[in-house]
């Protein structure tokens, strides 16, 4: 830190006042290409050693004391110019600057620390401009990166899961994944303007965003040090421009989504098949215990009919009629009719912006309202954003900004959705012949948790109604979450002499998120708990309620406060004859504090806000229908965390002769989550890069290839592990004694440090055939070292695992992006092609896996939810299976291989197949992916379509359980049951083995882990089509708008081709295999955008 102070101190002697009288030279700097004013150009007098800058309209004035001097005008992106001046010089100079290079495109990349013209960068950046960002309509800004950013992919499996993996919350990865540990975030770092953004990404209104820069390699990202290992996404907000008159923009759009297609999944086992399985099990006596159990477990309507028939209370004919009636029902119809609807999303925004030489302003307001596909789920968002700059005196600039977001989400359908509504007992999800409404329009109960006869009988003797009616539950639910997020930011910068700018930036962010779930006295949750703990005195007929009748309230709040301070010096100047140096150096302090607390109240009255507090949580009470237990307190806890970072950084880029580029960066991070020894070491993240614009060489003579630039970078960035390096314990109050007690969290590791990712990137930028074809080609390699792994410990150590920096991975890939202008006349046709190849592999990993854990159930690969499996030499997400030998024609048993010979000793196959004898298919993540986007425009009309493809990967299909009792158990209800082997000969047309009772777990696991269920996941989808019409004022006199845009946007249009024959969309895999999944419904949006 001291050198920084020294640097500032060194600049001091430059100040030396002059007392002589001089004249004032004034002038204006304009650019040759745009004939536009150049703001912030440096004006320096050579002998007099004095410097000033042009203002927003390109004007400057500088006093001249000597009789003769030279003025040098320089600016990033322009060739510097030097002109002689004297006391006779005209007082209104016009200086025209030439652009430095043949323009690739006018791209300025923003790293969050500085903005650089892209041609002066050596690293790997992808810039998504405003137009491309606005091509897609979405409430989430990051969704708009899909299919338009090379090297970035939204991962399958995550798409299908609303609750994404805890360490891949954003569901995307940039150039693959390096971390192996489930506790390390695999998300890219999100930076909003200058600082990391810690709030919910949904808080950001996409209408406020000007552009996004994705930083992919070390030269681009290592300035973010220990948090940049997964790439960095820098989001830049809109700002007012100096000298720009007041401009107003209003946008409005509505998106309508289809009802989800609940009939999509080929896995859904519908009523006839399900009832057949129930009948088989009933005949085997599987339900006999339940039918007479004191615990009154749920008995499905079909089983109820079978049991009445067996008891002689129902004639065979009557039973058959009733069963046949059930077989005609399909719960998907009721879900579709009563629980789902078309979604509607409304997005409105308005903004004002403008500026003078002294100040600029931007102000926006946004309102979003969404009615989700689930009938009682909706959300709204209000955003306010202001960003202002002032220049009270020359050289000083002050920036202030405020962003405020208020989000409300209502989740009243969450527990009753397709896939979440359960029956319990021997069933998982609700049976497929349930109905929700009768002919008279009354909500019907489903069987849930208890048998209906029990529930009815309890109501007769005075207990609360104990039925579960899904539609009433939806009506009674009151489950909301609110997020309030405020960001205050400011930046003060001062131009020092000698081309140095000093600035201090500050950002404060506070996000308060809270959920409130009120279960009214009518809700099942409240009635169920009250009934369970109610005791009826048989003599007096009175009830003792250990949980008081009334409502239940649970509240949780999660607050996050982060603040950042950064001091930075920027240097930008011409060096030598044709060299240009841009450098920054600074320090940063950052703290993120989170506090979480939650509580719950019994006997809550929402009108009065009262609750019952004298509840006995310690005594054991009898519980209905059977057993005993204590009253479980509703969650009450407080937790929190503090993360602190202290960083020093520096970065420099030097370009000379218009051809050569050299860049370097260094950063040192300390954090309170690293080990002591780590914080004491000075091992900075660093990067270095070179660039060579070959086409600017004198010897270069390839006329058709007008631009050719080669780049290479090398360097390191990292990932932070959020655990602790110390032996830590959590303090609490002991439940038994009330004394203070501590539980130990982890064994210590003084050496714990960040993961280190070494990046090498080679890039080639080119422009050919008079800019008809432009492109970027990059080859990279990322080597992850010191990766945290969960090394297993023998249980005799008292711990099951240990976090250590020991694993290694390597990822290699190619990113190619090509844009061609195929026709450029009145009709314009352009094509953008993105192709990425990626290959990753584990180098070292200490944990050993049993075949069973490699071939486990999960269809996305075995690892998504349990942490990655590292098999040295294989990809991070490998798909492994047991070799398949077909079905035994006599028994329908699946045949596997044991030491090369066909076998049905499943236990031996599972425990005895060495990992290297498993069938390895490949990765479960795409190894090649990209998109093709064609855009046609004619006059004001424009139409574009984006086609996405993913290839070179595999998935595991789900299938029926081979154990009869599990066929009806929610986790494995699957239509393959109907295709099972039933008699010799079936093996010719099915690979689903026979289903048995009671069943063999190993046989079932072998089948689910076998090769026969692995398929190629490659597919091509038509993601979206956008049609727009733009009207410009220039073309229509008296048109009130400077610009008016109308557009229609259709999204999620569906799959065009898939490699698998099962009709499965690999982006929407069915992990549980329950058939209760659907692809994102098609949506269509209509919108308007007007500028005044």
């Amino acid at each position, binding site marked *: 830190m001291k050198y920084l102070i020294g640097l500032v101190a060194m600049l001091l002697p430059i100040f030396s006042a002059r007392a002589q009288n001089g004249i004032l030279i004034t002038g204006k700097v304009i650019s040759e290409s745009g004939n536009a004013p150049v703001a912030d150009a440096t004006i320096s007098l050579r002998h007099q050693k004095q410097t000033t800058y042009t203002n927003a309209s390109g004007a400057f004035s500088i006093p001249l004391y000597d009789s003769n001097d030279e003025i040098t005008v320089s600016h990033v992106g322009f060739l510097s110019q030097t002109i002689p001046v004297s006391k006779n010089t005209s007082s209104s100079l016009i200086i025209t600057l030439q652009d430095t290079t043949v323009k690739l495109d006018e791209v300025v990349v923003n790293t969050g620390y500085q903005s650089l013209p892209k041609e002066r960068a050596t690293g790997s950046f992808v810039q998504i401009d405003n137009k491309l960002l606005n091509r897609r309509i979405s409430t989430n800004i990051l969704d708009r990166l899909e299919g338009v950013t090379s090297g970035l992919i939204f991962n399958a499996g995550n798409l299908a899961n609303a609750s994404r993996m805890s360490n891949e919350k954003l569901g995307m990865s940039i150039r693959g994944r390096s971390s192996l540990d489930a506790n390390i975030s695999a998300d890219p770092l999100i930076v909003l303007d200058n600082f990391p953004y810690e709030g919910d990404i949904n808080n950001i209104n996409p209408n406020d965003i000007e552009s996004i820069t994705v930083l992919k390699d070390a030269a681009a990202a290592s300035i973010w040090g220990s948090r940049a290992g997964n790439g960095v996404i820098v989001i830049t907000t809109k700002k007012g421009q100096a000298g720009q008159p007041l401009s107003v923009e209003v946008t409005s759009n509505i998106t309508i989504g289809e009802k989800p297609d609940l009939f999509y999944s080929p896995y859904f086992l519908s009523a006839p098949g399900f009832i057949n399985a129930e009948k088989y099990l009933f005949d085997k006596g599987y339900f006999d215990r339940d039918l007479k159990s004191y615990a009154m477990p749920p008995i499905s309507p079909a089983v109820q009919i079978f049991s009445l028939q067996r008891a002689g209370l129902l004639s065979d004919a009557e039973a058959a009629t009733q069963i046949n009636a059930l077989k005609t029902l399909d719960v998907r119809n009721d879900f579709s009719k009563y629980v789902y609807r078309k979604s509607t999303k409304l997005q409105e925004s308005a903004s004002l912006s403008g500026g003078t030489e002294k100040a600029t302003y931007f102000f926006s307001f946004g309102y979003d309202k969404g009615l989700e596909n689930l009938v009682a789920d909706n959300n709204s968002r209000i955003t306010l954003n202001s960003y202002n700059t002032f220049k009270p005196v020359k050289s000083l600039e002050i920036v202030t900004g405020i962003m405020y977001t208020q989000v409300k989400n209502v989740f009243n359908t969450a527990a009753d959705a397709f896939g979440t509504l359960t029956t319990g007992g021997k069933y998982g999800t609700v049976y497929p012949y349930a109905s929700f409404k009768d002919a008279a329009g009354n909500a019907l109960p489903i069987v849930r948790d208890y048998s209906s006869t029990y529930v009815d009988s309890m109501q007769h003797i005075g207990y609360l109604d104990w039925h579960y009616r899904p539609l009433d539950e939806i009506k009674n639910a009151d489950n909301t979450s609110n997020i309030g997020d405020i960001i205050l930011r400011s930046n003060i910068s*001062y131009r020092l002499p000698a081309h140095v700018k000093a600035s201090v930036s500050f950002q404060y962010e506070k996000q308060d998120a809270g959920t409130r779930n009120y279960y009214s006295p009518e809700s099942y949750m409240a009635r169920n708990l009250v009934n369970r703990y109610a005791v009826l005195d048989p003599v007096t007929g009175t009830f003792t309620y250990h949980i008081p009748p009334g409502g239940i309230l649970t509240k949780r709040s999660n607050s996050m406060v982060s603040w950042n301070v950064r001091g930075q010096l920027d240097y930008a100047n011409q060096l030598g004859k044709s060299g240009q140096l841009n450098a920054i150096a600074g320090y940063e302090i950052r703290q993120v504090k989170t506090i979480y607390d939650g509580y719950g109240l019994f006997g809550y009255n929402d009108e009065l806000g009262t609750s019952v507090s004298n509840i006995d949580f310690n005594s054991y009470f009898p519980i209905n229908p059977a057993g005993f237990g204590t009253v479980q307190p509703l969650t009450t806890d407080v937790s929190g965390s503090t993360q602190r970072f202290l960083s020093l950084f520096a970065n420099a880029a030097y370009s000379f002769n218009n051809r050569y580029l050299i860049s370097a960066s260094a950063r040192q991070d300390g954090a309170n*989550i690293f080990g002591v020894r780590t914080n004491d070491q000075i091992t900075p993240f660093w990067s270095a890069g070179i660039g060579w614009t070959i086409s600017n060489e004198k010897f270069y003579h390839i006329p058709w290839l007008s631009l050719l630039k080669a780049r290479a970078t090398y360097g390191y960035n990292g990932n932070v592990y959020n655990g602790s390096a110390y032996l830590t314990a959590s303090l609490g109050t002991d439940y038994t004694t009330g004394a203070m007690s501590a539980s130990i969290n982890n064994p210590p590791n003084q050496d714990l440090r960040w993961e280190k990712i070494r990046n090498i990137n080679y890039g080639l930028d080119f422009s050919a055939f008079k800019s008809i074809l432009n492109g970027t080609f990059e080859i990279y390699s990322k080597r992850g070292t010191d990766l945290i792994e969960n090394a297993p410990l023998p249980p005799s150590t008292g711990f099951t695992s240990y976090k250590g920096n020991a694993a290694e991975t390597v990822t290699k890939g190619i990113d190619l992006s090509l844009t061609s202008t195929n026709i450029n006349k009145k009709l314009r046709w352009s094509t953008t092609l993105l192709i990425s190849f990626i290959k990753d592999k584990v180098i070292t990993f200490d944990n050993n896996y049993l075949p069973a854990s490699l071939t486990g159930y999960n269809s996305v690969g075995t690892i998504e939810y349990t942490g990655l499996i590292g098999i040295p030499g294989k990809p991070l997400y490998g798909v492994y299976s047991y070799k398949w030998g077909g079905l035994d024609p006599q028994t329908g048993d699946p045949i596997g291989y044991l030491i090369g010979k066909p076998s049905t000793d499943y236990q031996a196959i599972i425990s005895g197949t060495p990992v290297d004898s498993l069938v390895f298919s490949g990765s479960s993540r795409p190894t090649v992916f990209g998109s093709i986007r064609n855009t046609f425009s004619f006059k004001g009309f424009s139409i574009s379509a984006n086609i996405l493809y993913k290839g070179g990967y595999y998935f595991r299909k789900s299938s029926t359980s081979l154990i009869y009792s599990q066929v009806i158990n929610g986790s494995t209800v699957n239509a393959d049951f109907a295709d099972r082997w039933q008699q010799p000969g079936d093996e010719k047309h099915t690979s689903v083995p026979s289903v048995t009772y009671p069943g063999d777990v190993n046989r079932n696991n072998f089948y689910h882990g076998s090769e026969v269920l692995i398929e190629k996941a490659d597919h091509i989808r038509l993601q979206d089509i956008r049609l727009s019409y733009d009207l410009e004022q220039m073309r229509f006199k008296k048109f009130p708008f400077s610009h008016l845009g109308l557009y229609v946007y259709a999204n999620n249009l569906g799959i065009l081709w898939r490699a698998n024959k099962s009709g499965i969309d690999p982006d929407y895999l069915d992990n549980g295999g329950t058939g209760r999944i659907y692809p994102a419904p098609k949506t269509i949006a209509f919108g308007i955008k007007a500028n005044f």
Partner: protein
Amino acid sequence: MKKILLFIFIVATATSCNKHDWLDVKSNKSDLVPKSLSDLQAILDNTEVMNFNYPELGFLGSDNYYLTYSSWQGAFTSAERNAYIWAPDIFEGATCVDWDAAYKTVAYTNIVLEGLNNITPSAVQQDQYNNVKGSALFYRAYVFYDLAELFAKPWDSATASSDSGIPLRLAADVNVASKRSSVQETYNKIIEDLKEAETLLPETPLYLTRPSKAAVEGLLARVYFNRRQYDQSLSWSEKYLGKRNSLLDFNSLDSNAYFKLPGLQPVNPEITFYSTALIYSISVFPKVDTMRYQSYQAADLRRAMFFVSSGQDHLFTGAYSGSVPLFAGIATNEIMLINAESNARLGNLPQSMDVLNKLLSKRYITGSFTPLNAGTTGEAIDIIISERRKELPFTGNLRWQELRRLNTEPARSVTLTRLLNGTVYKLPPADNRYVYPIPPDEVKLSGLQQNPR
């Protein structure tokens, strides 16, 4: 110029704060880096780890309860099913909760003992320091002993130095490899630690979940008793009974309550150290057969207080835990029975019967108890063993330990049998299956030598 100075001032102020101070803040609110005596005491006051979840495998394999075929099928884990029929493989590749929980307790005590090395207590802190140290030694010895009775051969002085014992983990460092000690070393360490703990612990603990001098004496009595060193078990039980001899009068219990026996609240006066066993699905209210139920006389209150009858079934709800889990601590009733049998073994018949009758008089309806008499040592021992089964049917692994002890006496050893769905399973005396296999994950990760089954 002033502005420049101001900027320098800001930079200097912002960076002058010490880097280490800034980064020394702990990251999790509830985290604690244990340093002080009270931190270490708090670790030992974690009852979840130090008092609950004591091993229960021995119960699963012992004979006081039975399962019907359907409830056997309904057991949650295959370990339960396998232990019930003494199958050669118990864990089927799964982890063993008994082993894991016990070694977690060991790790806690090792962390505390190593933490104490960095503390030099002041005179005021000496008692607290002693309590922490004595407690850690006691808890560690207790679970080592429980593990030894499950995973190592019974004590036999002739072979103890060559029989495989349990891994004695004495350091907190997870990088230290685990290896099996001998049975001799295992018991030497247990006894050495307990004797040291006795000198350090207070007479009366603050909570019954913390150990005391009497708790150590009771445990030493049990250890020597099961090693068949009856002179030692007699002397340690005498010491214990000199301090703790109040008994719970079963006449004072409410036979209508769901849990009729008191545990911690209200307190059972017989409990000296409170701990409970792991809850397995089949250890919740174990079922006894009618013969065992009928072995309690009509005037014996234990029948009414220990069992709840529903139809044909007699469910044991009388654990000293006062609740669902089975009691696994130290209580006066057990020590009196140890004292009685030790006396009998040493030929002190009057003393033996005296202490037994003293206990039983509190178990019968007031006025209905006829004191028992024994004519010979053998008779006395048989009476006491039969009363032991009635008094301690389901206390931790005590019955398992007793079976292992009696296996050495041909006259008192038994062959256990189970009947399930027409299949009979047998466990003859001193069978290899009286030693449980080392859990497979432990064998895999630390290469421990497996027990023959």
